[in-house]
């Protein structure tokens, strides 16, 4: 009976799923075409970037996506380093999200570079004072770490037990390396703004930026895991453990409390608290960001109704994501005075098309990977399966 219920539900999802997949594929194709067009014709011909706004939608999304991809290092840290075994069931989806997220970030960075033909430039030419140099190296190395973390799933399917065992033996050093690299580059994204004190509004400039960016990446990583688990398991037809997801929400409450204490405490300490209550456009943006990103999860994840409800957890995680995106975009655009006072920026169709295309492709790849790989299993469960040599999916 359970079997037939499962089959009917699967059919139901896959019917609607086909349409969703078709739309995602079409958006990805549009992104590919516009991306190539951008590479051939240049940034001036295809974007509204200018000398006043040298960075735009793409980098705003990259900053957001790197924090979202923080799901991978956060969960690896929780499961492998804090040894909280309860959360093992969400580890693989989180690592898959990180891997696909970081590859997406790299694709966008490549398209955004003025000299995409020299994307490798940070390897031979070093400037150790540059936050971006550090970020480039960390992202390169961390993407390798993510590849090592995701590889056992692919190799397990390809019947390569020896390599899988070797990777399994290296899991702790690899995890430590991944967490250290993430600690460095997630915080250094904040350091990037430390380099422009005069141009950045005081609500977005503090010595604590590296720590605030790091903490918010962990908070985002926890909510990203909740979000991806709920969307992914629905798409693939898997039943997520609500108490596990609620537990992630609970952990993130403490992260956001610490974040708020530091961020508001810093303003209090520097005597700039008044800027929060100026209720001009900057302080309004600040409030929206703080309420969505930090206050909402603290309140909602602590509510017992939310903890028991999939939709409650879903909406809370979505609000956090929006709030974090708001924070990263605020820092990049609203918090920063353009060189030309009065200059404005709004992305072009190509900028939107490329961005949406990359996100659609990411969702598509995530879905296919979740279908083809044992994403919703823990390592132990996979080993049991292998021992039984039963075909996957049979129950």
């Amino acid at each position, binding site marked *: 009976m359970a079997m037939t219920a499962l089959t009917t539900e699967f059919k139901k999802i896959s019917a609607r799923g086909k349409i969703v997949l078709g739309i995602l594929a079409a958006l990805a194709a549009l992104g590919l075409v516009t991306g190539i067009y951008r590479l051939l014709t240049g940034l001036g011909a295809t974007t509204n970037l200018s000398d006043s706004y040298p960075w735009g939608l793409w980098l705003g999304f990259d900053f957001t996506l790197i924090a979202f991809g923080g799901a991978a290092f956060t969960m690896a840290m929780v499961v492998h380093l804090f040894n909280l075994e309860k959360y093992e069931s969400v580890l693989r989806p989180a690592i898959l999200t990180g891997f696909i997220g970081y590859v997406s970030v790299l694709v966008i960075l490549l398209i955004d570079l003025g000299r995409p033909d020299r994307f490798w430039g940070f390897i031979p030419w070093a400037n150790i004072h540059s936050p971006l140099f550090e970020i480039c190296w960390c992202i390169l190395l961390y993407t390798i770490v993510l590849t090592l973390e995701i590889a056992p799933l692919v190799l397990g399917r390809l019947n390569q037990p020896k390599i899988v065992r070797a990777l399994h033996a290296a899991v702790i050093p690899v995890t430590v390396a991944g967490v250290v690299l993430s600690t460095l580059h997630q915080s250094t994204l904040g350091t990037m703004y430390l380099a*422009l004190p005069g141009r950045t509004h005081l609500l977005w400039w503090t*010595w604590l930026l590296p*720590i605030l960016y790091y903490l918010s990446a962990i908070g985002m990583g926890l909510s990203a895991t909740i979000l991806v688990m709920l969307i992914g398991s629905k798409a693939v037809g898997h039943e997520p453990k609500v108490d596990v997801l609620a537990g992630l929400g609970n952990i993130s409450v403490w992260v956001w409390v610490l974040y708020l204490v530091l961020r508001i405490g810093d303003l209090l300490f520097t005597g700039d608290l008044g800027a929060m209550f100026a209720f001009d456009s900057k302080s309004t943006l600040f409030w929206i960001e703080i309420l969505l990103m930090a206050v909402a999860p603290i309140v909602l994840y602590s509510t017992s109704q939310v903890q028991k409800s999939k939709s409650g957890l879903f909406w809370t995680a979505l609000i956090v994501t929006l709030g974090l995106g708001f924070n990263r975009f605020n820092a990049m655009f609203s918090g920063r005075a353009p060189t030309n006072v009065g200059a404005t920026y709004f992305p072009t169709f190509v900028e939107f098309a490329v961005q949406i295309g990359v996100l659609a492709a990411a969702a598509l790849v995530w879905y296919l990977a979740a279908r083809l790989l044992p994403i919703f299993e823990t390592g132990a469960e996979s080993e049991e399966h292998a021992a039984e040599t039963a075909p996957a999916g049979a129950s």
Partner: protein
Amino acid sequence: MTNDHGQKPSHTLTRRDLLKLAGVGAGGLLLRPELAYASGEVDAENAAAMLYDATKCIGCRACEVACREWNDLPPEPEPPSDTTAHTWTLIKQYQGEAGESFRKYQCMHCLDPACVSVCTVGALSKTEEGPVVYDTSKCIGCRYCQYACPFGVPKFEWENPLGLIGKCTFCADRLATGLIPACAEACPAGALTFGTRKQMLQEARKRIKQNPGYIDHVYGETEGGGTSILFLSDIPFEELGFPTLGSAPVTHASVMVANATPVTCVTAAAVFSGIYWLTKRRNEGLKEKEI
């Protein structure tokens, strides 16, 4: 806190800064903070500098023409309203309540340049002779220099599919052969004076003393840690669109954090390995109890 040249301290840590630092000190940020001032190694006072006296400028634009000619810059389709990747210097007219004036726009050739500090690949560098130069063969086009420069100087070739940054080089190639910058040579009004930074500051102070019409400030003497291009004006500098900057190099905070990276790295590795070890022992302990 004076340096070799008896210059005013370029940055004094305030109590507020110190307390803030103490707050982040856990990350090892207090490591060798003096490295934040890369310019300490450059003998800035005896390096090349230029003084632009706005009260002497007649707005003839001979400097613009000379710059374009010497640097082989392609002509602009329309007269630009701002410097571009192909217009490295520009004279703009100011008309306002404070009066009338011209202002020359160009790279300020900071003593501790933000662009050099943030450039991912080290394509930008401050030479000992004074100019901030740009190596076209290294640039990857990330545009962080544009984002970070407090004066909005580096400009990008937006129309070029493989675009690069364009900015004033202080005619580094001319200086190397003993010539003075093309713009300074072309100026018929004596608005541009070339020499060492020490000489230019002396000259500027002399003029201020002789003529009370000047604003009593040499812009660039301390701004952002000091610049090689110095300005005199009889109109407040903010009116002319000059940013108000402290005396610390703009990127002193980011450089301080970047310098702490090795410490952060080792600390993080130790902390996370320690946490792993502790939680593993705790879990084993719990399992033993269950048995």
